């Protein structure tokens, strides 16, 4: 009796969170799944069941494939580089050097700035002719490039902004983890005469594994979620060269108002993220020492 009362109590306490989760996460997910098998309601016509047609359209849609491939490139480049960079930065500012606070602040600064503002600044960095990057190139005798207007460079250009934006954020997690490591490891390593590289490889890196998993999962999600700067910098152009899944999804949903097809795209994106997340979680979790 007392035990079941306790159970009720527990559920009552969980109730607010559960309700929010159901209303804002689970219900929309299920509704999206249902909508993805329906046609798009327009004006007087209401939605009707059309089976897998939205998915068949997707298979035939070259822009979808282009956005998917772009997104995979975006992920394949941003994830390892930003994680590696954040780790290097964290190791660097973890030392007690003069001016560490300045370095920490400057590394973290991009994270605080709103992405739209950042993108508007980067547009001018990339501007052909007088943009910062092209001026540097020209000083060293290279010719100016049209970074955002050339299909072979545009995706790379938006990837650089993404890395610049998120590395500092990940650095904070690594820094926090490094700071919490007991100094006795370092002392022991010093007594044993271990090199810094050995110390990092055998002691710091394994102990940072839980942080790495956390950062990796976030990096993967971000790779599919960071699109704000694409709106400002390239609009997915030129000719879809920098379009990624979420950007394309927005276009379908809120520019073309094609609710059915947008739902199908959402389902694919959600499914992909869920699979990646689970695999990551279970595969990497075993390697972590908590």
């Amino acid at each position, binding site marked *: 009796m007392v035990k079941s009362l306790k159970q009720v109590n527990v559920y009552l306490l969980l109730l607010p969170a559960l309700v929010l989760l159901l209303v804002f996460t689970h219900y929309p997910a299920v509704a999206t799944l249902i909508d993805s098998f329906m046609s798009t309601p327009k004006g*007087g016509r209401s939605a009707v069941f059309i089976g897998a047609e939205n998915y068949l359209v997707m298979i035939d849609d070259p822009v979808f494939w282009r956005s998917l491939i772009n997104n995979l490139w975006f992920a394949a480049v941003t994830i390892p580089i930003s994680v590696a960079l954040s780790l290097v930065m964290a190791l660097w500012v973890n030392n007690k050097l003069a001016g560490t606070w300045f370095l920490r602040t400057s590394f973290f600064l991009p994270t605080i700035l709103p992405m739209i503002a950042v993108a508007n600044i980067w547009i001018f960095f990339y501007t*052909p*002719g*007088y943009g910062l990057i092209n001026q540097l190139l020209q000083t060293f005798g290279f010719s100016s490039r049209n970074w955002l207007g050339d*299909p072979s460079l545009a995706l790379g250009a938006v990837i650089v902004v993404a890395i610049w934006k998120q590395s500092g954020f990940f650095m904070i997690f690594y820094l926090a983890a490094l700071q919490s490591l007991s100094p006795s490891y370092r002392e022991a390593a010093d007594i044993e005469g271990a090199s810094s590289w050995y110390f990092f490889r055998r002691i710091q890196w394994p102990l940072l594994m839980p942080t790495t998993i956390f950062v990796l999962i976030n990096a993967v999600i971000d790779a599919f979620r960071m699109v704000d700067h694409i709106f400002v910098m390239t609009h997915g152009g030129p*000719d879809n060269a920098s379009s990624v899944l979420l950007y394309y999804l927005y276009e379908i949903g809120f*520019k073309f108002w*094609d609710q059915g097809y947008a739902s199908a795209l959402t389902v694919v994106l959600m499914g992909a993220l869920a699979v990646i997340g689970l695999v990551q979680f279970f595969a990497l979790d075993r390697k972590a020492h908590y």
Partner: protein
Amino acid sequence: MKRLIKSLTALSASLVLSAGLSVNAFAKTEVSFYFPIAVGGPITKIIDQYAADFNKENPDFNVTPVYAGTYQETIVKVLTAHKAGKPPAAGILLSTDTFTLVDEDAIVPVDNFVKTDADRAWLKSFFPAFMLNGQISDKTWGVPFQRSTVVLFWNKEAFKSVGLDPDKPPQNWQETVDMGRRLTKVDGNGNVSRWGIQVPSSGFPYWLFQGFSTQNDAILANQQGNQVKFDDPNVIGALQYWVDLSRAYNIQPPGVVEWGTTPRDFMEGKVAMIWTTTGNLTNIRSNAKFDFGVAMLPEGKRRGSPTGGGNFFIFKKTSAAEQEGAFKFAKWLTQPERAAQWSIDTGYVAVSPAAYDTPALKKYAADFPAAIVARDQLLFAVAEFSTHDNQRVTKALNDALQAALTGAKSPETAMKDAQAEATRLLRSYR
């Protein structure tokens, strides 16, 4: 006792008064009005002032302006609200979204409210070129409010420095090329320090392209909005010319040229001539450190430029009183004096010929003749490209233009691909 009575009277008086006030407030019809901002300047302040003035003159209505972001953000908000059954009474949206709004059954024709002769005269008072996008199947769905068109800006000092007459901008396609060649400056390393011309092609290249295609005597879409002519030889020829400015004549930066930085490129002297919206007039005027001119776009087989900008729409799922208020507000906003002041403050083209006859705009134009160029070009202006399923068809066109400009496809292949895609998208509207 006496004091008590006195205070009671005062109390009841104030009660009656406040009750009267609240009755009054209750009788007012709330008219919500969504507007976007697409150009620089204190737009929100101006619009808020308009609403306050209107409310003072029309005690029956209370117009509440809501700044809703960019055009794209505004239509997202309006259509989402419409689908939820609670749209605003009025709003400013792109004139090209008319088909979308009609297909979504979101707006009512303005004709519904035109009852008196004065109303009819008002509806006829606008520049005909600005009415085109709002008229579908013999009905007028939106009235022009903040409208623009594409014009050419040229740097007079750059012209002088290469021995060109600073007061003579290029009049036709050939002169553009000849002058552009002289204006393009290449340094010893082969770096271009100044380009001849720049026609931006990021984001919405179709709009600028309509300048070329109209000048080459082609109309991209029919008035019913269910058929496009992307593979017309004149359209392909127009695109070939645009591509050649970069690839054959080397007077325009290669690849896709950013819309947002183009005015800046011009003000920095990195390009001698640009095509951009009249909406940039005020911005360039206050920031350019050199003497510049504004001209009509050069002539091909004919002159031509698209119109652009936003129309005033009245939404369907609102009460008759709200719609009436919205209609009144639309009329009020577009009165000649107000349209003239709006044009001076923002750089938008005033929407009616009468506005250009007002003392305010006449004085402004005498001071700054560039303000008149856009009006004169309206004679040659065409409707902005718009079809059913508008943004999707437009994307097909945009992708094709960018593919050609970046050299991924030949102009002919690009436009034929876009034609096939657009025809497929529009088949259900035929």
